[in-house]
């Protein structure tokens, strides 16, 4: 029994940390730019496919793929922000959302063109493949890796935002854009930088997903964006702390659900979201309206 619970918890933690990795970029972009990037799931997917491709072409080196893949996606993100998104900030919100959605359409098909519409099997990573025995049952090593990476990224982001000069500027710009500009921050460049960083995080999540998800499909971006949205609502839109803990909760809930109430496990997530919306609409860590 204990073994079951521990394993379910660990599974939940790994799912949660995985979602956190993806949601962190979305939250960062929203927190600073106030733009909800529908294309974030697409960046995740691009990161995964690129990493996979590099893995295949450049000699089975996962780590290389993890470095190069997200950088390439960053370039895409840069182009999107600098040449398109920047010109629609002054428009009503729906237009910004629809712009990012246009890129979802474009890249979803681009992936299909480049890699086909079918699914690709995910390879395993030497050194992190296989499993470790915990309390008598095997648990995938890679999942443990994810559980470790999650908090690492969280702490790195916290340190960056709280302790570095750049981080302070970013936080200032997100709470008062005009003031930050008056103080000398080059806000447009800053926004581009934040968007690129957020994109990088999403793509990194995608790269890390390659050995984790089992199958790469062109629909993987959509699946993960819903999870990221739910996490953002529960944690509080724009709050990184909220995204971290929200992801943990969702991961654990999902894991317990799958184990104990199979058919309806996804509803637990939605029910939680509905409950949060009713009783604490700004999320656990969001700013009250």
């Amino acid at each position, binding site marked *: 029994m204990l073994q079951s619970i521990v394993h379910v918890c660990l599974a939940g933690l790994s799912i949660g940390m995985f979602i956190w990795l993806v949601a962190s970029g979305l939250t960062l972009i929203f927190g600073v730019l106030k733009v909800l990037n529908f294309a974030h799931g697409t960046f995740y997917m691009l990161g995964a496919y690129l990493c996979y491709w590099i893995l295949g072409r450049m000699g089975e080196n996962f780590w290389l793929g993890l470095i190069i893949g997200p950088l390439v996606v960053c370039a895409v993100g840069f182009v999107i922000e600098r040449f398109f998104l920047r010109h629609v900030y002054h*428009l*009503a919100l729906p237009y910004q*959302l629809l*712009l990012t*959605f246009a890129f979802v359409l*474009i890249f979803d098909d681009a992936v299909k063109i480049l890699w086909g519409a079918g699914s690709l099997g995910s390879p395993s990573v030497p050194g992190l493949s296989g499993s470790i025995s915990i309390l008598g049952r095997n648990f995938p090593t890679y999942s443990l890796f994810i559980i470790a990476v999650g908090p690492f990224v969280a702490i790195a982001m916290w340190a960056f935002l709280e302790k570095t000069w750049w981080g302070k500027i970013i936080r200032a710009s997100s709470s008062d854009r005009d003031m930050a500009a008056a103080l000398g921050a080059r806000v447009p460049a800053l926004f581009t930088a934040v968007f690129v960083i957020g994109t990088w995080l999403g793509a990194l999540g995608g790269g890390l997903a390659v050995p984790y998800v089992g199958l790469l499909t062109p629909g993987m971006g959509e699946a993960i964006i819903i999870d990221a949205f739910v996490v953002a*609502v529960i944690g509080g*839109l724009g709050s990184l702390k909220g995204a971290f803990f929200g992801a943990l909760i969702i991961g654990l809930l999902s894991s317990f659900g799958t184990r104990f109430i199979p058919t309806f496990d996804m509803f637990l997530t939605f029910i939680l979201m509905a409950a949060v919306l009713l009783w604490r609409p700004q999320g656990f860590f969001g700013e009250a309206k």
Partner: protein
Amino acid sequence: MRRYALPILACLLLAVLVLVGILGSRFTVYITMRVMILAIFALGYNLLLGRTGLLSFGHAAFYAGGSYGAALFFIHVHRHPVLCIAAGIVLAIVLSVIIGFFCVRHTEIYFAMLTLAFGMMVFSLIWNLREITGGDDGLVGIARAPISLWLISIPLAKPAHYYFLVLAFFLISVGLVYAIRQSPLGLILSGIRENDKRIEFAGISLKNYRLAAFVISGGFAGLAGALGTFLNSNTTPFSAHWTHSAEPVLVSLIGGIQTFLGPVAGSLIYIVLREIIERFTQNWMLWFGIILLIIIMGFRGGIVGSIAATLGFKSRPAAQNEGLPA
């Protein structure tokens, strides 16, 4: 002369539609029905998007509600097409009241996200409840039984016959949407779009009126879904997927979200364009993504908006080219 532009256009449209039904080839009839059904979906949806200023990514759930509602009624209760359609609309409305209740109390971004999430929840429901919904196979065999009026029995089995039922619903929808746009409620919804913070101070409950717009558009989505079920004789869970939710958005934008007939024009363009693109490539999404990009970057008035502006139509107060606060 310009005052009569809209009525003249409407009559022309009606004449063309009737002629297609009588003289059109099987393919033309089929395509036109698809256009009309999508137009019904988009006309209702645009009351929410263009009029009220709310972007929902979950309306496919209500389309699916209408679709599955009609199918389930057909299978378990009665085969009369109009009753089935009514049942579909009722289910769609119930769903939109429930989902709308959670969503309308939130600001734009949360609203968009929540509608997306709840919409996908409906998709998952449909996918997983195999025994009821047929899962990924959907429900099949939804035939078009004849409608009996007193002593006359109107057969609908032939597409050309069903066409006129669809046309009738299309005309009713166009009329209803027109009436709503011209009504006090229509003005209030414009007010919400223009300044949702001020509207409460004008004595309007923001939540209630947003919900009204949400449910009305959900009802039209349900009608479209039900008509779609009888068109194809089956249902599919993908009708609830969020990418299907994007269709009325895209279509309204192409046509012009601040115009009355924009969604209709957009539906025609979308379906025709898609047919053409799909002859050459599977990747129609890529092309529509590009079109959407172009529209947002430079042509937010859409086709109808741009044509109207070119022809020098002076904006009727609070009619064309308002744009969402641009």
